[in-house]
C-alpha cells in the first residue's frame, strides 16, 4: 500500500530523513524519566503540516520521523526485533499480524483519555476487540476510480472491472492478491471475510476469463495510471483518487453497490519501544479534536475521530469520495488476517492468474 507515497513526496521525504540523521547531543530526560524524544515510524505525508512541531512545542518531546511504503516493509523491519520505534501506524490486518507475533505493547487506556473522541463505531472493531493494542487513526475504502469522459455513467458495480468486456484494455486491477480475491468474492456475492476455497476457485476462474480485457495489475499506483491516461478504470483507495481528483476534474470515484473492503490505519506501540510513556502521550495528542481536524484538513482521509469531524468544514464532511454513502458502507466489511495457509493460498491464486 504505497497510497500515501507519491514519488515527489518520497524524494522530499528522503531529503528530510537525511537531514534528521545529523548527530545531536542526547536529549534531556522528562518528568516520566524518559528521554524527551520519540521515534515515529509511519507512512509519508500522513500527518498535518504542523502536527509534529506542535506536539514538540506542547510537550518538549522531539519527534524523529521514519517512513515506510507498505505494511510488509513495516512488518519485515520489526520482525528481527524493534530497532527503536515508539509509535507505528499499521493497517488493521497488520495489527492482527503484529499482535499474533507478540510484537505490540498493550495500550494503557488511562493514559489515552482522548479515546472518548473516537466515534463509537471504531471503539470495538473485530480486529482489536476493546482497542487493547491499537487506536484508530484513519479509515479507507477501495472503490473504482474512473475517467468520466471515457466511461458511460457511473461504473457503480464491480462488474465493470471484473466481469465485462465493455472497457476492454482500459482496466487496471490491484495486484495485492488478498484484496483482489476478496473483492472478486464480494462481487460474486460472498463476504470478504473467510472466503472459502471454492469461492477462491470461482474468483480465480472469473479473473482468468477477464484477463484479456485487463490492462495491468498495479501496485497501488492506480491514481497515477488514471491521471496519465494509461487506463480509464482502476481499483484504488478513496484517499488516493481524492488526491488526483483535486487536480483533474475529469476523474471520478465510486464505491460499487455490492459493497467493499474497509481498511483502518491504527496507532500502535511496538514491543521494545524505548519510550512507551512518550508514545502514549503522542497517541493521545493525535486523538485530540483540534489536532485530529488539522490532520484531516491536510491528508483528506476519513477520520474516525468524531470530535475532530465536528470541527471540519462541510466540503470534507459531505464529500462522497471521503465518506461513501451509508447504504454502500452498510454492505462493506473489514478484512481479517486469516493465517499463513490463507496467505499462501491467495499468493498461489495470483501466481496462477498472472501465469494463465
Amino acid at each position, binding site marked *: 500500500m504505497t497510497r500515501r507515497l507519491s514519488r515527489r513526496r518520497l524524494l522530499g521525504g528522503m531529503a528530510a530523513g537525511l537531514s534528521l540523521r545529523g548527530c545531536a547531543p542526547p536529549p534531556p530526560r522528562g518528568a516520566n524519566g524518559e528521554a524527551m524524544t520519540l521515534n515515529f515510524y509511519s507512512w509519508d505525508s500522513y500527518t498535518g503540516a504542523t502536527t509534529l512541531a506542535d506536539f514538540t512545542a506542547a510537550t518538549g518531546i522531539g519527534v524523529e520521523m521514519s517512513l515506510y511504503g*507498505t505494511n*510488509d*516493509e513495516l*512488518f*519485515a523491519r520489526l*520482525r528481527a526485533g524493534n530497532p527503536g520505534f515508539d509509535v507505528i501506524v499499521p493497517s488493521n490486518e497488520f495489527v492482527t*499480524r503484529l499482535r*499474533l*507475533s507478540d510484537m505490540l505493547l498493550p495500550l494503557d487506556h488511562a493514559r489515552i483519555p482522548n479515546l472518548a473522541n473516537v466515534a463509537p463505531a471504531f471503539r470495538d472493531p473485530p480486529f482489536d476487540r476493546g482497542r487493547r493494542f491499537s487506536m484508530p487513526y484513519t479509515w479507507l475504502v477501495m472503490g473504482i476510480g474512473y475517467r468520466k469522459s471515457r466511461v458511460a455513467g457511473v461504473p457503480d458495480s464491480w462488474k465493470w472491472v471484473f466481469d465485462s468486456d465493455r472497457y476492454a*484494455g482500459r482496466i487496471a486491477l490491484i495486484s*495485492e*492478491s*488478498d484484496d483482489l480475491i476478496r473483492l472478486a468474492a464480494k462481487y460474486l456475492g460472498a463476504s470478504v471475510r473467510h472466503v472459502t476455497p471454492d469461492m477462491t476457485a470461482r474468483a480465480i476462474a472469473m479473473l482468468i476469463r477477464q*484477463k484479456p480485457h*485487463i*490492462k*495491468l*495489475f498495479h*501496485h497501488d499506483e492506480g491514481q497515477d495510471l488514471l491521471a*496519465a*491516461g*494509461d487506463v480509464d478504470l482502476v481499483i484504488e483507495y478513496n484517499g488516493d483518487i481524492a488526491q488526483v481528483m483535486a487536480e483533474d476534474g475529469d476523474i471520478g470515484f465510486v464505491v460499487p453497490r455490492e459493497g467493499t473492503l474497509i481498511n483502518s490505519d491504527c496507532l500502535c506501540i511496538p514491543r521494545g519501544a524505548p519510550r512507551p510513556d512518550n508514545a502514549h502521550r503522542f497517541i493521545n495528542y493525535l486523538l485530540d479534536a483540534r489536532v485530529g481536524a488539522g490532520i484531516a484538513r491536510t491528508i483528506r482521509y476519513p477520520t474516525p475521530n468524531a470530535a475532530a469531524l465536528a470541527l471540519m468544514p462541510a466540503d470534507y464532511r459531505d464529500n462522497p469520495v471521503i465518506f461513501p454513502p451509508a447504504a454502500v458502507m452498510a454492505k462493506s466489511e473489514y478484512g481479517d488476517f486469516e493465517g*499463513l495457509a490463507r*496467505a*499462501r493460498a*491467495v*499468493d*498461489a491464486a*495470483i*501466481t*496462477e492468474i*498472472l*501465469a*494463465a
Partner: protein
Amino acid sequence: MTERPKAARGVFALLAGPPLVWLALFFVLPLVIILGYALGENRSLTDIAITGSFRNFGRALQPVYLGVLGKSLWFAALTTIACLVIGFPVAMAIAFAPARWRLALLLLVMLPFWVNLLIRTYALMAVLRPEGYINSLIKLVWPAAWLGDFVPLDLLHNNAAVIIGLVYVQLPFMVLPLYAALDRLDRSLIEASLDLGAGQLTSFARITVPLAMPGIIAGIIITFVPTLGAYLTPDLLGGTSSQMIANVIDRQFRSANDWPFGAALSFILMALALVAMALQGLVTRRGRA
C-alpha cells in the same frame, strides 16, 4: 618445482585473508541460511523451523511455477538474442572506428549506467505510454485527413515492453565483452581471407565470428543470467502476463510471508544460472581443445 619462500606465503595469506573472510561472511553464510530456509517451514508469522523437508522444492515443481520459470527462460533467451543481434554490429563499429572516436563511443555505451535502473525504467514508461513521447510524436505528424484520427499505439504494459526494457538494460553488458574480443582480433586474418577470395559474409562467418567467440559467450552469459532474475522491468513495464520468476520470489518474502518457499525458488533460480555458467565452461573448453 621450487618451494615457495615463507615470506611469499605470508603475503598470500595477508592478501587473500580479507576477501576470503568477506566471502565466507557475506556469500557462503547467507547462502547456507537460504538453503536452511528452503528446507524448512513456517511455524508462525516469524518463526521458521528447519525440518529438512523437500516440500518447498516439491511445490516449486508444480506446473504453474514451472510455467513461470519457462516463461522467464524464454524472456531471457529472447533478450539475449536481441542483444546479440543489436550488440554485434555496434561492437564491430566501435572496434573498427578511428582510434580517437573509440573512447567516446565506449563512453556512450556505458553512459546509461550513470543513472539508476529504476529511474531509467520510469523514463522508459514516459516514452512508451499511450500519451507518451513516441505516441505524441506520431500524433504530431499523423495525416488525420487521410487516415482518420490517430489511435495511440499500445506500447506499454505488455510482454513486448518487457523485452524492450530488458534489451535496453542489458545491451551494454553484451557490447562491452564483444568489443573487447573484436578489439584484440588480428585484422590481418580478415585481410588474408578477403585476399584469398572469400567474400565479406564468408570472412565474417568464418573468421570474425569464430575469433570473437569468447566475447560472444561471455556476453551471452552476462546478459542471460541477470535477465533470468529480472524483477523490476517486468513489474513496471509488464502487463497481465509478464510475471517472471523473480516477481513470484519477491511476493514470497513480502505479502505471502512464505520465506521457505521463496528461498527454495531462489535456489532453483541460482541453480539455473550455475547450469548456464557450466555450459559456458564446457563450450569454451571444447573450443580450446
